[in-house]
C-alpha cells in the first residue's frame, strides 16, 4: 500500500492540504496539482496509480482530464475518481461508465473515499 502514487487535483489549496495530509499519513505518495493542466502534466510525468480529480478547475475540468487519461493507451489503465461539488452539472452516472471510475460528492465521508481508493489500488 505504501508508496502508491496518487495525483490529487483541486484548485482549492485547502482541499489539497487536508486530503494531502490525510492520504500522506495513510502512506500514500500524494502528488498535488492546482488545476487541470497541471494535473494532466503530473499524470503524464509521474504515471500515478490513481487519480483523484476535482470537477471544476481552471484550464481543464475534471472530466476533460479524465477524457485525456482514458484516451491515452499509456494512461487509460489508471483509475480516475472524481470528487465534485457540482453534482447537477454533469450526469455522473453516465460519465462514470465512460470516463471516470468512481465519484464522490463533496462533502463526503473519509471512509467512503478510502473505500473507493482501496477498491482500485488495494
Amino acid at each position: 500500500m505504501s508508496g502508491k502514487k496518487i495525483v490529487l487535483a483541486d484548485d482549492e489549496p485547502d482541499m489539497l492540504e487536508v486530503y494531502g495530509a490525510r492520504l500522506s499519513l495513510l502512506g500514500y505518495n500524494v502528488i498535488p496539482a492546482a488545476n487541470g493542466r497541471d494535473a494532466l502534466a503530473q499524470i503524464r510525468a509521474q504515471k500515478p496509480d490513481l487519480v483523484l480529480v476535482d470537477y471544476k478547475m481552471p484550464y481543464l475540468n475534471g472530466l476533460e482530464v479524465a477524457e485525456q487519461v482514458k484516451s491515452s493507451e499509456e494512461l487509460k489503465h489508471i483509475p480516475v475518481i472524481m470528487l465534485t461539488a457540482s453534482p447537477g452539472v454533469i450526469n455522473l452516472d453516465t460519465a462514470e461508465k465512460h470516463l471516470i471510475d468512481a465519484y464522490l460528492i463533496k462533502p463526503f465521508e473519509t471512509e467512503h473515499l478510502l473505500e473507493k481508493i482501496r477498491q482500485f489500488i488495494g
Partner: protein
Amino acid sequence: MKLKISPSKTVQITSTLLLLMLGLVSIAGWHLKKISLIQIGPDFVAIQYNTALAFLFLAIGVIFIYSGQRKIGCFWGALVATIGFLTLIDHVSHLDLGIDYFLTKQFMSTSSIQTGHMAPNTAVCFVLSGTGLLASAFRERRDCSILKFILGVSIFSFGLSAFLGYLLNAQIAYSWTIEKPMAMQTAFGFVLTGIIFLLPDWDRNNPVQLPLLVFTMGTILSVLFYRSFNASENEFLNLRFKFDVANKIISIRYEVETCQQILNSLRGLYNASTEVTDREFLQFIKTTRGSRDFHTIQWVPRIINEESRERFPVLYSNPPADKNATSGFDYASMPGVLKFIEQSRDQGISLILEPESSMFAEDSRQKPVFGMVEPVYKLGETPDTILDRRNHLMGFLVGFVPFRALLENALALIIHQPIDVYIYDVTSPGSRKFLCRYPEGDGSFKQPFDDPDQIKGLHITETIHIINRKWMISFIPTSDYLTAYGRTWLPAIFFMGSMIITLSISAFIWNFMKSKAKVDEVRARFEKVIETANDAFVSLDEKGAVTEWNRSAELAFGWTRAEALGKRLADLIIPAELKEKHTHSLKRFVATGTPTILNKRLELKALHRDGHEFPIELTVWALHENASYSFHSFIHDISERKETEKIKSEFISMVSHELRTPLAIIKESISIILDGLTGPVNERQTKHLATAKNNVNRLAKLINSVLDYQKLDAGYMRFLMDENALNQTIEEVKNGFQTVAKAKGLEILCEPDETLPLFLFDRDKIIQVLNNLLNNAIKFTPQGRVVIRSEKKDETAIVSVRDEGPGIKPEDFSKLFQSFSQLHTSTGRNIGGTGLGLVKSKKIIEGHGGTIGVESVYGKGSTFYFTLPLTKEMPA
C-alpha cells in the same frame, strides 16, 4: 386658427343658410313680381309674403343665437312667433288683424296665386319655431332643451308630412283648410327648421328621442288621416244632400204648378155652367175641397157698385141657410192685394197671393197656407187685350193651399229623406217673410229660423221663382239624415287605431332602445375590462379561429387585432411542433367533450410574429352556447419569470458548489484531528469534534435537499425509462429498511400483486419515492407495522404504504406536498429533514404520468399511495 366643424354642425349651418335663402328669394320674388321665384309650378301654391318674411326672421334669429347673441336671437324668435300667432287668431276669429299685409301691400294679381293669407298650419309652425328659438336661447337649462327638442320634433313632423303630402299627392297633409294650403317650399323650410332645432341635441343612442319623433310623426299622420277620412265622408254627404235637395225643389215646383193647373181647369168648368148660381158653384167646388192640395177654393165675383167701383168680396164664412147674403171682405180694400189681383186680371193667368192674404183661409189649423187667384172672364176664353180682360172679368177663383199639404204631396213623389224644409217669401226686395216650416224628419224643430243666414252646419238655401213669387227655401238635414248618409264613427275609430299603433311602436322602440342602451353599456364595460387586461385574452371558435384578441395579445404576439381575427390560432402563435396536437385536441374535445387542457394552468411555448418562441402560462376554458363551443384563454408571457428562475437555479448551483467545497475541507480537517492523526485527542475534545462533524453533515444534507428541489423545480429531472419489475423493486427497498425497522421493533410487510407485468419506469427514481415513503412510515410509527401493497387496476399500478403512526389531520393533507413544510403535530418534536421528500416524490410520480396522495385517519395511521401507468412502449 383652424376651425373644426363636425358633420352635424355642417348640416346645421347648411340648413340655416338654405332657410335664409328661401326667405330672401321669396321676398325678392314678391318685390320683383317674379312668379317663378315664389311658385314651384303652375299647379302649386305660392309662398306668401309674410311666410317668406317669417322664414327670413327665423334664419336671422338662428344665426344670432348660434353666434352667441342670445338676446337679439330672442327678439327675432318672438317676432316670428307673433306673426304666426296673429295669423292664427285671424283664422280662428275671422277678424282681419291686418297681419297678412304685414310690411307689404303687394299682391300678385295672377290668377294662379292666392294672395294674402298664410296657411293655418304654416302659422302653427311659426308659433312653434319662434318658441323654439326662445327656448334655444336658454340652452343651458335642461327643461328648455327638452322643450326645444319637442318643438323641433313637431316642426320637423309638420314640415315632413306636408312635404310628403306634395310628393304623394295627399292634399290633406299640406292643406288644413281647402282654400289655404301650405306651399311646398314652406314645407321644406319647416323640415330645415326642424333639423336645425333637432340636430344639436340629437343622440342616436338616446332612448327617448327616436320614439318621441316616431310618436309625433305618427300622431300628426293619424290626425291627417282622420281629417282626410272625415273630409271624404263630408264630401259624400254634401253631394248626396245636394242631390236630394235638388229633387225636392223640382217636386215642390211641380206641385205648385199642378195647383195652378187645377185652378185653371176650374175656370173652364165655371164658364161652361153659366146657369149655375154662385151658391150652386160653391156647393159644387166643395166637393173639390181637399182634392190634391187645395184646402179651399172660393169664388170672388167682381161687383161693380153704384159708384162704379170694383169690389171683390171674399166670403170667409158660408152663408146661413136662410140668407143669401153673408158678411165678407173686399179684396179691393187691401191696396197690395188689389194691385196684385189687377195684375192677375190683366195678364189673364193665375198668380199666388201675398202671404198676408192667407189670413182669409178658413181653417186656422191648416195654416200656414198660400192663396192663388185665377181670373174668370165672360165668354170663357181669356180675351186678347187687357181692355177686354178688364171689361169681361167676372171674378176670381181663389184657392188656398196649406203648405203642409203641398209639401206632403210634393215630397211623396220622391223618396222620403229626413230633411227639414223652411220656406220664406222674398218676393219684394228687402223683405223676407217666413212662410212655413216642414219637418220631414222626426218633426222636432230645434227652433224656427227666421233668418236662414243663422242656420249653422250643413244646409242648402235656394231662392226659386214660383209663378209670380220668389221663395227662399232652406233645407236642413236632420240627425237621422246625417246618420244615414254622413258622419260615422269610422274616422274616429281609425284615428284611435292608428294612435294605438303609433303609441305601441313608440313604446316598443323606446323599450328596445332602453334595453339596448343598457346591454351596450354592460358590453362596453366588459369589453373594456378584457381590452385593458394585463394578460393576453384570446377567444376561439370551434374551428380554432380567433374571435377575440385584446391589446395585451397584440403586444405579446405581435399580431394586431384586425390581423388576428378570423385566423386560425394554429397559424398565429402555436409553434410548429405543437400545431398538430392543438388541432387534434380541439377536434377531439368538440367531438367527444373530453377535455385535455381545459381549466388547468399550463406552461407552454408560444410563437411570436417575428418567429421567436417564448414560454407562456395559460388557462383555457370552454363555453357551450347555442349548440357550439367557444374557447377562452388568458395567456401570460412568462419569459421573465423563466429567466429569473434560470438565474435563480444557476445561483443556487453556484452557491451549493461554493458551500460544498469548504464543508468538505472543514469536515476532513475535523476528521483528521478526530482520527488522532495529529496527536492524541481527549474525550471532551472528541465529543465536541463529533458534534462539529455532525453539524457539517447536517449542513451538507440541507444543501443536497435544496439542490435536489431546485433541480426538480427547474424541470431538470430526467427519467431513464426502462422495463422493470415493480414488485421486485419494492422488495429491494423493503430489504434495505429491515435493519432500521428491526432496531425500532417494527414489522414491514409486503403484499405484492403478482399479476403486475413489466412496464416502463425509472427504477432509481421510483426507488427514491419508495425510500421516502417507507422512511417516513418508519420514522413516524412508534410501534406496530408498515405494509407495502401493490395492485394492478386496469392500466395502472397502485402502490400504497400504510403505517400505524399518529395520522394526519385532513386540513394538513394539502400542505404535505408543498415545499419546505413538515408537520410537527402530535409528535411534538422535530424529526429532521427539509420536508422536500414528498415534494420530490410528487414530481417523480407526476413525471411518470401518475398521481400521489394520502388517506389518513387522525390518530390511527396514514396510507400514502401512488399510481403509475402501465406503459409498455417508449413514448415518441
